[in-house]
């Protein structure tokens, strides 16, 4: 299909990364869907099956599936739910440490984007800068449904760090677990920050399925805005096909959102279905396919400055 593939949106498949209240909301939605199909089952049974998708804490299975699918690298994202959801079982520091372990276990396979809720204040800013400068992470992950918008001034110290180190910001867009606030996750909220930080590249997640027109419009008109296509696995091949015909393929990043769709197939299945389901337009030139599958990701990840004087107080002191 193409010589190189980078998956720009994955998570560690482990219960420690998703607080119980987050998982409960997902299970509620599944239970409602099952009942509607004439399959009334207890939440406990659904929860047990759903938990089965989150049993790859060291990413050994993910790497095996990446190998099978021809995916050379993946970005592992750390959404910080620990401020918004008090039932989080691990601190954000512990989650960051776990992701370092995973990356070091699989050399050359993973880039890590750390999320730090901006309401953690100076400690959070220092932790985020440490993740870039000391731990070698490659970007920032934001999750606005946790209770902030993308142009919230509390985020500006983080954006200053991203600008200094030339690392991208990837943000969740659209609905998510029902315990969180959907309204905050609208792409237009990026506009002020994108103007104020022209040297920072921002990536909208799930743009195939959430606010597609708005994301595409913003990416077409702001040079530092990009989008990833994760979520196309949910019967959205036709929408991805339309997105890839909009003339912005230099802004579109291949992504899967592992492990969210594990019950629908393997990573190789999802790669194959891009062709068999017609998601990739027949008319899409090879040069644009190469950008979509890896070139755009390589460009964004390749801007990083590995050394820079610390921006935050105590960034390198823990």
């Amino acid at each position, binding site marked *: 299909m193409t010589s190189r593939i980078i998956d720009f949106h994955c998570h560690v498949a482990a219960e420690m990364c998703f607080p119980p209240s987050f998982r409960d909301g997902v299970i509620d939605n599944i239970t409602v869907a099952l009942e509607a199909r004439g399959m009334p089952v207890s939440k406990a*049974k659904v929860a047990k099956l759903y938990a089965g998708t989150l*049993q790859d804490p060291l990413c050994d299975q993910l790497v095996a599936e990446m190998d099978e699918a021809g995916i050379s690298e993946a970005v592992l994202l750390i959404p910080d739910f620990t401020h918004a959801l008090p039932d989080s079982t691990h601190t954000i520091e512990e989650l960051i440490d776990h992701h370092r372990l995973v990356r070091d276990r699989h050399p050359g396979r993973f880039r890590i984007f750390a999320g730090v809720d901006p309401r953690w204040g100076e400690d959070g800013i220092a932790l985020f800068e440490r993740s870039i400068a000391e731990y070698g992470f490659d970007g920032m992950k934001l999750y606005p449904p946790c209770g902030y918008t993308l142009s919230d001034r509390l985020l500006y110290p983080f954006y200053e760090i991203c600008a200094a180190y030339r690392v991208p910001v990837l943000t969740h867009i659209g609905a998510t677990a029902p315990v969180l606030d959907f309204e905050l996750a609208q792409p237009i909220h990026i506009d002020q920050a994108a103007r104020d930080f022209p040297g920072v590249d921002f990536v909208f997640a799930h743009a195939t399925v959430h606010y597609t027109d708005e994301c595409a419009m913003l990416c077409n008109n702001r040079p530092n805005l990009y989008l990833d296509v994760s979520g196309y696995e949910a019967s959205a091949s036709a929408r991805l096909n339309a997105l890839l015909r909009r003339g912005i393929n230099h802004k579109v990043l291949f992504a899967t959102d592992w492990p969210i769709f594990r019950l629908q197939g393997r990573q190789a299945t999802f790669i194959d279905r891009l062709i*068999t389901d017609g998601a990739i337009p027949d008319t899409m030139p090879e040069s644009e396919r190469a950008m979509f599958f890896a070139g755009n990701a390589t460009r964004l990840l390749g801007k990083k400055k590995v050394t820079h004087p610390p921006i935050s107080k105590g960034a390198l002191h823990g």
Partner: protein
Amino acid sequence: MSTETGTITDATICRIIAGAVPRAGSITPSMSLQADLGVDSVGLMSIVFLLEEHTGIDAFEYVQEFIAAEYVCDLIAIVRRGSDAR
């Protein structure tokens, strides 16, 4: 693969699976769950719960196998292992 173990035949298991895939016609062991039957996440869960109800297997002993299943024959193999274990 044996076509019959005890009273559960491949055809019986296929009929049970069909109960969760209402759009499908006749289901055969070689069919792909996703490509041929369009099984999504909720659909796979429905299949698992139906197989548990109708065959008596303990589905939760085989969660990872169900997640990895790609074809109808993979599900049949899980049911056979579950039946043998009882």
